[in-house]
């Protein structure tokens, strides 16, 4: 599926001096172009989602798989281990899995049983996928900028550039991106020694959004549990809905803000706890819901002001030192 080979990658890198300088001096084009559809988001109402209880697979999951099947990885076999480790991540023989995130399944519905105030316990069905954060650490920290946030506020991974280091998954509070070995750019280098494949996750059907449509999962939901629209409006709606049911909102503050807002009748702390207890195999793809979780970039961002001030500090020190030494020369 990768059309960018090593030669063209290095060619692009070599050309970067010219093109980069042009881009960097192109004024307003340096900034993201305004989105034609604004900043979009989704609202997931957990009072409505029943996980399509009477069906084998939830409709949102089926719609996502159908929509994206042409983009699923087709790894070259045999897949090499990640030297010096004696393992690699290969989900290609488990494509049928629909109860967790994999490179072949970008959304799933997690059922948890949690205690409530009025009854002893209740089942909650939580559709899970990328939250499309406002300040996505996965995109900021990607060493090749394969992961970026679009002007619509959607976080996407370019499978032609991704090297599969899985750093995005490590800095994601939910560990969302899923890795498949045996595909991608790294195969054109030294696949035994560097690179790990390609990371896959929900892109909110960005192509559909740009055509004026809603994401496939939204259209497929028989309960209208997933709503799509302008992010700000959806947040207001989520808060109003939470007030109406005396419930809770998740996604407004987590990771510095996201564009996915869950509304639940039970506290997310309880949902999180139940999800943590469900994870038994230790493998990625079954994210919990930590409440108020911070952003991996926060600590570094606190130093940004100092970074911008650093050259000025150096100039001032140079002026003082030059004055003193030149005066001493006289």
């Amino acid at each position, binding site marked *: 599926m990768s059309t960018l080979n090593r030669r063209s990658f290095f060619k692009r*890198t070599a050309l970067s001096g010219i093109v980069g300088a042009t881009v960097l001096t192109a004024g307003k084009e340096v900034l993201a172009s305004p989105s034609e559809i604004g900043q979009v988001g989704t609202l997931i109402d957990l009072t409505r989602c029943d996980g399509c209880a009477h069906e084998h697979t939830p409709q949102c999951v089926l719609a996502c798989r159908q929509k994206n099947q042409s983009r699923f990885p087709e790894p070259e076999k045999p897949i090499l281990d990640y030297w010096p480790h004696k393992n690699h991540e290969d989900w290609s023989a488990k494509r049928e899995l629909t109860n967790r995130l994999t490179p072949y399944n970008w959304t799933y519905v997690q059922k948890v049983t949690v205690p409530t105030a009025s009854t002893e316990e209740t089942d909650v069905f939580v559709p899970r996928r990328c939250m499309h954060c406002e300040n996505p650490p996965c995109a900021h920290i990607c060493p*090749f900028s394969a992961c*970026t946030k679009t002007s619509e506020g959607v976080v996407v991974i370019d499978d032609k550039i991704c090297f599969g280091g899985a*750093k995005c998954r490590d800095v994601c509070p939910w560990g969302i991106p899923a890795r498949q070995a045996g595909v991608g750019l790294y195969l054109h280098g030294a696949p035994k020694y560097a690179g790990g494949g390609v990371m896959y996750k929900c892109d909110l059907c960005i192509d559909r959004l740009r055509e004026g449509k809603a994401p496939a999962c939204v259209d497929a939901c028989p309960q209208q549990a997933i709503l799509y629209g302008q992010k700000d409006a959806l947040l207001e709606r989520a808060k109003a809905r939470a007030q109406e049911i005396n419930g809770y909102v998740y996604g407004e503050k987590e990771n510095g803000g996201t564009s996915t807002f869950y509304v639940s009748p039970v506290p997310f702390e309880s949902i999180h706890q139940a999800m943590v207890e469900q994870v038994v195999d230790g493998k990625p793809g079954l994210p919990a819901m930590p409440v108020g979780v911070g952003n991996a970039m926060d*600590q*570094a961002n606190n130093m940004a002001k100092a*970074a911008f001030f650093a050259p000025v500090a150096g100039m001032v020190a140079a002026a003082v030192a030059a004055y003193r030494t030149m005066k001493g020369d006289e």
Partner: protein
Amino acid sequence: MSPQKREPEGILGNGKVLRHGKINRFVHWIVALSIFSLIFSGFGQMPMYKRYMLVDVPGMAWTGDYALTLTLHYLGAIVLMVVVAFHIFYHLLRREFHIMPRKGDVGESIQIMKAMFTGKDEPPSHKYLAEQRLAYAFIGLSIIGVIVTGMIKVYKNLPGIDLAESTIFWSTTLHNLTAMMIILGIFLHLAAFLVPANRKLIPSMFSGQVDAAYVEHRHSKWWAELVNKGKYKGYSSNRQGTVNSQHRGFPK
């Protein structure tokens, strides 16, 4: 603020020449240390330490924490930027441009390298050899490149800042490229000491001093400048001859 005596660059009375004052040596070593730290924290961002199991070495588990290595990367960058800005403006204000490349440096560098193998005379040099000026330009431009692209990356990491995807892609790619150029530059810089004649310069990065005979022989244009400036301090012609006769390993 009381004026402080500048460490005088010039011929000393002990058969040595002061080649680098305290400020230059300080700048060199802080730049070196910050760049080494940046290379380490930068490779941590690639990511490499989990893959190549550095995290399993006792006491090194922290190298797998991307938020921490990123913070260290910012810290190293702040130090580097302070010192680089200091270096540029300090020498601009003092109008010291010995190390800036000059016309003909490429040809002269080739001559110097040829002399290394043929045993012929090297062309007379200023304070820096032509190849040293070119190396400075290469490393200097790479550092400027890595700083500019790094600043763009720091800016785009801030909450609420959305740059165009192409800007992000190119700043990242250029950052990686210029970082590799710096690593190549450091490698070549250190490889220069495989040439015995260059090793005479090593003490100058610690004490600031090099042998006067070396300067007179290999950097004769600079030597002439120093003598003309009247910096000569009790370095007798007799002694000069003695040092010259002991001076071996240079192309005659």
